[in-house]
């Protein structure tokens, strides 16, 4: 039995769904960020699998490099913001950080 594109896509889809689940069900900001990391990894897996099985050269790998880079930038800012929230509210749970209402 040979490993095909669909095997990788399935792993990607599972990771994407798990990431989505984490974003919806978690209330700790850092846990939500972990969910987002899972989604970004699912995207990377897709890009690389597509570029290998489509014979598309290194395009997919290049976009993944940029995704990783943006993930780093985002994580750095996210952590700074979460620490700032923690200084102001003394918690990192987003449902306790809710001072604005309709």
């Amino acid at each position, binding site marked *: 039995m040979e490993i095909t594109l669909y095997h990788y896509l399935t792993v990607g889809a599972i990771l994407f769904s798990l990431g989505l689940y984490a974003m919806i069900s978690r209330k700790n900001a850092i846990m939500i960020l972990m969910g987002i990391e899972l989604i970004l990894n699912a995207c990377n897996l897709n890009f690389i699998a597509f570029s290998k099985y489509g014979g598309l050269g290194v395009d997919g790998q290049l976009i993944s490099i940029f995704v990783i880079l943006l993930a780093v930038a985002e994580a750095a*800012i996210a952590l700074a913001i979460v620490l700032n929230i923690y200084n102001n509210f003394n918690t990192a749970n987003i449902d306790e950080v809710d001072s604005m209402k309709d």
Partner: protein
Amino acid sequence: MPELTTILFYIFAFITVGFAIIVVSTKNVMYSAVSLFMSLFGIAALFLLLRADFLALTQVMVYIGGILVLLIFGIMLTTKITDAEIKTNNLSYIPAAFFTTGIFVILIFVLYTTKWNQKTPIQNEETISQIGKALLSSYVLPFEIASIVLLVALVGAIMFSRKK
């Protein structure tokens, strides 16, 4: 007798998915972070199976060495470790589980019914030199803009964490 790559794929796919499930299901944030570490390692191995050697390396160095360490710092700075209170509650996980299962079913349906662009994969090729050439020729603009993104991230992180 299955091929070695097949066996390896299943091993790493199970590591990736299994630990990812722990990431989203455990209540302890620290366990989540460690499981994410394993899961990302699994993905790096899958990258290797896809012959993306440079990317596998980047994944290990940047993702695991950088982002994950940042996240763990974040956890340790925002939760009281001494009280063993590194736990979080889930909001409404039953509706969330239903919703994501729905999305997953749709995704799988689309992934398996679409005729993807497939050709015979090119075997055993050096990727690092190709990536290097591409970064300095057709991808030179994103490469340079990326430096601005990092500069902005740097400014932002300093701005938020600087003392008054």
